[in-house]
C-alpha cells in the first residue's frame, strides 16, 4: 500500500513537471456503432487527445493496440483518451464491442 502511495506521489510530481503544453484535441463520435470521422490526421511525435463521444445507447470500448489505448465509453456519454507521441504512420483503432463496423484510423504525419 505504501509503495502505491509513493507511486501516486511520484506521478503527481511528474504531472507538475514543466513542458506539459496543452495537447492538440480531436473529437470522434460513435453513432450506430460507427466512428465519424473514421480518419484523423495528427502531427507525429506529439501527444494529443481524442474526445470520444458515444451517441449510441450501448457502451463501447475504444481500443487500439498500436496506439496503446483502451477505454470503455458508456452509452450516451463521452471519454477522453490521451495518446502519443506517435512516429509517422497509420494507427488503426476499433470499437471492441462492435469490431466489424466500428473502425477508424489515426494518421500521424
Amino acid at each position, binding site marked *: *500500500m505504501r*509503495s*502505491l502511495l509513493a*507511486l*501516486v506521489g*511520484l*506521478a*503527481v510530481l*511528474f*504531472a507538475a*513537471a514543466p513542458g*506539459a503544453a496543452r495537447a492538440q484535441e480531436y473529437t470522434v463520435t460513435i453513432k450506430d456503432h460507427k466512428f465519424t470521422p473514421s480518419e484523423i490526421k495528427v502531427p507525429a511525435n506529439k*501527444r494529443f487527445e481524442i474526445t470520444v463521444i458515444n451517441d449510441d*445507447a*450501448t*457502451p*463501447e*470500448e475504444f481500443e487500439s*493496440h*498500436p496506439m*496503446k*489505448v483502451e*477505454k*470503455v*465509453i*458508456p*452509452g450516451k*456519454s463521452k*471519454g*477522453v*483518451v*490521451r*495518446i*502519443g*507521441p506517435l*512516429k509517422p504512420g497509420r494507427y488503426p483503432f476499433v470499437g*471492441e*464491442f462492435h*469490431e*466489424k463496423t466500428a473502425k477508424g484510423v489515426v494518421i500521424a504525419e
Partner: protein
Amino acid sequence: MLGALIIVFREVIEAGLIVGIVMAATRGVAGRGRWVSIGIAGGVGGAGIVAIFAGTISQAFEGAGQELFNASILGIAVVMLMWHNAWMARHGREIAEQMRDVGQAVSEGARPLTALAIVVGLAVLREGSEVVLFLYGIMASGTSGAALLAGGVLGIAAGAAFTALTYFGLLAIPSRYIFSVTSWLIALLAAGMASQSVHFLNNAGVLVALDSTVWDTSWLLSEGSLFGKMLHALIGYTERPTEMQLTVYIATLFAMFLLMRFARSSPSQRVPAAAE
C-alpha cells in the same frame, strides 16, 4: 453469437490465467478453495458495481478516472503478489515437505491467502466489469439479444475451462518444483501488471516521462491475437513498450528477486538450506 463468445472469452482469459496460477501456487494449502471462491465472488460483485458506475468513474479526475482506477487496481495487485511471494519464499519449503510427509493440507497457509484472494478478486473485477458492460449492451440493444447473450455465457464457460486447463497444466509439474515455478510465474505476472499500471498512468496524463517506444514487435506477435493476449496476461507482453514500461518491468522483477532472497535468508528459517 460466435462474435460475442470470442469477445467475452478474450476478456475472461486474463483473469482465468491468474486464477489458474493462484490455484496451482496454493496447492496443498488449507482453505484455499474458500479463499479463491471469495476472491472470485467479490470480483464478480465488484465488476457489477464498477459497471454501474462506469460513467461516474470515467468522468472523475478530468476524464482520467478509468485510467487511474485501472492503474491503482494493478498497483495493489502487484503489492499483493510481492507479499505472497515473500511469504512463500519463507514458508514454501516447509509446506512442500509437509505435503510430502503427511499428504494433507497445511493449516499454516491461512495468512497469505488473503493477499491472493485480493489478487483474484481484482483480476476478476477488472476484466469482469468489461464483460458486464458488453453483455448489458447486448441486452439493451434488444433484437438478436438472445443468441448473443448465449454466446457471452458460452464465452465465460470457455474462460472457466481455460482456467482449469491452466491449473491442471501446472499441476503436472512435480510438487518439488511447483513452488519455484509458480513463484517465478507470479514474479513475471507482477512485473507485467506493474508495467501495465504505469502505462495507464501515462494514458491518464499523469506520468508522461520516458514515453518513447523502445521497440515494435507487432509484426511478430500482435497483442490483439489470442496468443498475444495470453502472453500479455502472463508475462506482460506488449508489442510497443515505452521506456518507462520497460524500466518498471525490470525494476519490479529485480525488487521481487531481492524480496524473495531477503525473505528466504531471514532468521525465522528453520529448515537447513542444504535440504536442496
